[in-house]
């Protein structure tokens, strides 16, 4: 099913979605765009390249409350926080970010214990994917093409959106998306021309070039395994690294978290908050032992986790090439360049 509406009527669509449930869509803020829960339909703004924080926060919010309790009272009085979600519409997700959900699914609900929060939030959501503007140059930081993701890949979305001049085209990809699209009566039927445009656009998306390197998962995993102990290499690439958490917090596939007990006046909440393997205390043990005290070890962990460990454990590269980590790195560290160098790193002198 392909439907459409004029871009300047997007707020009308937003209003309908807000009525049906919770709408999360890009909003322009001081520093750039971010997905926010929309309280005013006029806030939705699709004139963005990509958001600062990835849309993972829709399913894995930076802060998720588990339990509320009172200190000094019995554990039996503690109250787990129940998620009673309305339908969630995640609107305007770029294809690379849509791909990230698939990778995160493997971790949170596809293997081992199922994370109930991720699963519930994921099930409640309908994803409106949104193709990149192919007429616009790719951001120099991006490299999703390297990860086999096209600029207009509809896979993973429930509904996929493509801009055509002043119109926005909506195509249902999944049954869930189809059902919703049927319900969105304020959208009009698309024409045959629109259909053609849509298909062509998606095809063109594959030719749209971001930075590209040939990375075959198994091979790259091996590559990183072989240089894991090459301290010279890792120290070199991490010379500039500040060991802050920007790259991991903006990353769509970073999932590390901490579980904290936060109390005030005898009232407490146990919650999880994002954590970052780049933080010095991430692996600090109560004994004082810390297996990763150096910056290079932490940067190595982050990169190898994505380009080696994840491949071994989950079979996928845990990176979608969205370029956020590079774009927001205060010292311009570029994961793509490091991956490129890693391939050549065999020739580095070992210490």
């Amino acid at each position, binding site marked *: 099913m392909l439907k459409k509406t004029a871009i300047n009527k997007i707020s009308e669509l937003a209003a309908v979605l807000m009525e049906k449930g919770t709408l999360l869509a890009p909003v322009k803020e001081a520093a750039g765009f971010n997905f926010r829960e929309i309280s005013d339909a006029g806030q939705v703004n699709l004139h963005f390249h990509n958001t600062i924080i990835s849309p993972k926060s829709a399913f894995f919010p930076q802060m998720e409350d588990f339990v509320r309790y009172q200190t000094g009272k019995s554990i039996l009085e503690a109250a787990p926080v*129940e998620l009673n979600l309305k339908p969630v519409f995640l609107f305007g997700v770029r294809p690379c970010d849509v791909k990230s959900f698939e990778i995160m699914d493997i971790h949170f609900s596809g293997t081992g214990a199922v994370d109930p929060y991720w699963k519930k939030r994921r099930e409640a959501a309908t994803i409106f994917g949104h193709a990149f503007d192919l007429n616009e140059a790719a951001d120099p930081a991006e490299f999703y093409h390297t990860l086999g993701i096209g600029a207009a890949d509809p896979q993973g979305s429930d509904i996929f959106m493509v801009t055509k001049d002043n119109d926005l085209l909506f195509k249902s990809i999944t049954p869930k998306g189809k059902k919703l699209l049927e319900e969105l009566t304020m959208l009009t039927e698309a024409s045959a021309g629109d259909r053609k445009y849509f298909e062509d656009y998606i095809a063109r998306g594959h030719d749209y070039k971001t930075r590209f390197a040939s990375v075959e998962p198994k091979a790259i995993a091996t590559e990183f395994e072989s240089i894991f102990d090459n301290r010279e290499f890792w120290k070199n690439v991490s010379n500039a690294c500040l060991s802050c958490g920007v790259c991991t917090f903006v990353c769509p596939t970073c999932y590390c978290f901490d579980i904290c*007990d936060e109390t005030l006046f005898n009232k407490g909440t*146990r919650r999880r908050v994002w954590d970052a393997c780049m933080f010095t205390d991430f692996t600090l043990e109560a004994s004082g032992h810390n297996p990763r005290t150096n910056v290079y070890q932490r940067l190595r962990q982050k990169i190898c986790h994505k380009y080696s460990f994840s491949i071994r454990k989950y079979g996928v590269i845990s990176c979608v090439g969205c370029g956020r980590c590079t774009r927001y790195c205060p010292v311009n560290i570029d994961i793509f360049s490091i991956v490129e160098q890693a391939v050549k790193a065999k020739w580095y002198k070992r210490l």
Partner: protein
Amino acid sequence: MTNKNPYIPMPVKISRIIDEVDTHDIKTFRFEFLNKEDEAGFKYLPGQFGELSIYGKGESPIGIASSPTQKGYVEFTVQRAGAVVPGMVTSALHEMEEGALMGIRGPLGKSWPLEYLEGKNIVIVGGGFAFTTLRSLINYMIYGKNRERFGSITIIYGARNPGLLLYKDELIEWGKRTDLNLNVTVDKADAAWKGREGFVPAVCKEVAPGKENAVAVICGPPVMIRFTLPVFFDLGFSKANIITSLEMRMKCGIGKCGRCNVGSKYVCTDGPVFSLAELDNLTQEY
């Protein structure tokens, strides 16, 4: 969500607290589940661990010290952590009294490889506080008919001094058994000590059986492990037949929070039990 939510601890009651050592910083806590279904669901094997959970303080991953053959309760032996600044959870736990309620999540992680151990001669080497899950394993192996499933069992357990030995009553009981070769040693004896004096590696050299059909299960402080492993290598034990348990900072215990990630493994779900052969394939970041 409560029942199946792996992040929410199950309520337990502390039914017994045993002050294990002279320094009073290691205690064994016996917990009884408040809900029968929780107890039924808590199916564990020696070597697994649980997250001890105190609201307002946090959680701490601790190896299970009791054996599943002990019915109606689980036990954890906990050392008060932190030399200068005390650990939040462990110090709160040490201030708890019998009858108090708290939470447990688990069982978590992999157990000692019991199937692999079956029919083999077992050498158990423990040092200091790290003896807890080995105690679980011993009690499991010597329980009733279980004993028949294993070959000879040699135990080498050492502590810095007699006052720091854990499970003193059980050591006496085990010592009486003929189907166990128990060797308890202390680094430094006191006047009352009648047993061995000497370091664990030296005792291993003396009493460990040959490599044939044998597996060594070793837990202890890093320095003990460093000097004990060569003894077993000299005896010809392969790395696949030396098994140990890793300590790592863990939070969720279910392979989600990413903290205990070492190489492609999560210590909390892929471990904490690993053979040396497995560890060799892991990056050296633990």
